[in-house]
């Protein structure tokens, strides 16, 4: 990957120029589809964009010292990490990549969660601290399954290159890994039944309680970019390998859209679980499948 292609991927497609409108669009799709399934009207099409612009125009309360500096820094780091994660996705054919970009992608996908945990504790709000503690417990629970699922897919293909994984032939193990990623996505995106960290009507907005103005706008954008990155990861793994760039882009968007609808339906159909039930779900129910997937992948590797 040359510097030029890296910049083009980061800034144009599937990077910022595509990812930011896509983030607003996916946020709208999620809110609108949930509303329609609950017999509500839902927000207008441009609402996430209007929210972002409105928040940018508001002033934030003055915060002095290192806590204030950190509170301003966390959302920016989260947005940068999520945008970088989207930029790494191998959407277009022969778009280039490097050995180990899967590990970088996993690290970048994890950074927003760490920023959320740190932001809640930096805000010194009791609701923020509760939300951060929940996010930390959730992160420890679902990440094991999430990482094992991706590692199993990578181990079965003998590579940590994303474009090699995206163009790999489909095996039952591949589908098992994708299923495990899909199970982890609601927790990663903080939607029902795992909307514990920002549990509305319970702990206000969790780690975001003390945030306002442009900083909150950055958090919203980071959340939208996480949607694009999470659903995009599934889309790149599921999408069939095609040589035409525009067709590959259209397939990527269509599968991401379908995953957003699927997650929205899940969020509508379920209620929020308590933290102990959530942790038990990931450690008892899904971890077995993830370990099974990894062990199968390793077995296949030694056999081949």
């Amino acid at each position, binding site marked *: 990957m040359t510097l030029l292609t890296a910049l083009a991927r980061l800034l144009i497609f599937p990077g910022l120029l595509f990812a930011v409108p896509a983030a607003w669009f996916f946020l709208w799709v999620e809110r609108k589809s949930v*509303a*329609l*399934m*609950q*017999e*509500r*009207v*839902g927000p207008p099409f441009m609402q996430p964009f209007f929210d972002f612009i409105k928040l940018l125009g508001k002033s934030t309360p003055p915060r002095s010292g290192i806590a204030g500096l950190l509170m301003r820094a966390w959302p920016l780091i989260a947005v940068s990490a999520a945008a970088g994660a989207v930029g790494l996705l191998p959407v277009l054919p022969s778009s280039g990549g490097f050995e180990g970009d899967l590990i970088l992608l996993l690290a970048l996908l994890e950074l927003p969660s760490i920023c959320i945990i740190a932001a809640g504790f930096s805000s010194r709000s009791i609701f923020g601290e509760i939300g951060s503690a929940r996010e930390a417990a959730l992160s420890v629970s679902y990440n094991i399954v999430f990482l094992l699922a991706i590692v199993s897919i990578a181990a079965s293909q003998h590579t940590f290159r994303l474009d090699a994984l995206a163009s790999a032939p489909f095996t039952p193990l591949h589908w098992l890994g994708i299923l495990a990623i899909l199970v982890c996505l609601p927790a990663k995106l903080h939607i029902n039944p795992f909307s514990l960290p920002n549990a509305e009507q319970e702990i206000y907005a969790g780690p975001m309680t003390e945030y306002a103005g442009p900083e909150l706008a950055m958090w919203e954008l980071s959340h939208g970019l996480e949607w694009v990155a999470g659903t995009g990861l599934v889309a790149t793994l599921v999408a069939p390998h095609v040589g035409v760039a525009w067709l590959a882009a259209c397939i990527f968007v269509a599968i991401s859209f379908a995953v957003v609808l699927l997650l929205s*339906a899940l969020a*509508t*159909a379920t209620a929020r679980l308590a933290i102990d039930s959530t942790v038990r779900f990931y450690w008892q129910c899904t971890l077995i499948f993830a370990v099974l997937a990894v062990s199968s992948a390793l077995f296949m590797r030694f056999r081949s």
Partner: protein
Amino acid sequence: MNILTMMWKNLRRGYQTLLFPAHPRVTPRFRGLVQFDPALCTGCAVCRFRCTSRAIEFKAGKGEFTWSYNPGQCTFCGRCVEGCAEHALKEGHTEHALSQQEAVPPIYTVQGELKKSYTVARKPPAPKPAAPPTVIPPAGAAVPSPATGGAQ
């Protein structure tokens, strides 16, 4: 699976939210801007006395009086209308902030901009009704005592 069936039905049925009505009805008990009829007012100033928000001002002059009403200060409690014995005050039903049926709700940018004053000439006092002719009882006639109260 029941919840999925329910969600699918909801999707097919469309939203059931009742939209905000464009022209809601004004109820008969709605209290709008106070309407003043100078022809009926006698200048007793009971309304000024009953107005707790001091939206009504009253200045008495020689042969006339000035009645003022500031809707910006009015809380629409209706006490002035209740206390007006001559029915010179009424509660308006048109300037409804939600209905906009006949007129848009009043908007003001400067304090006291909506204030209206009426200078009304005092009416001459109505002629007293003629006193009934007094009958002087003849001397020696029995007068009913107040204790008995006369004929029951």
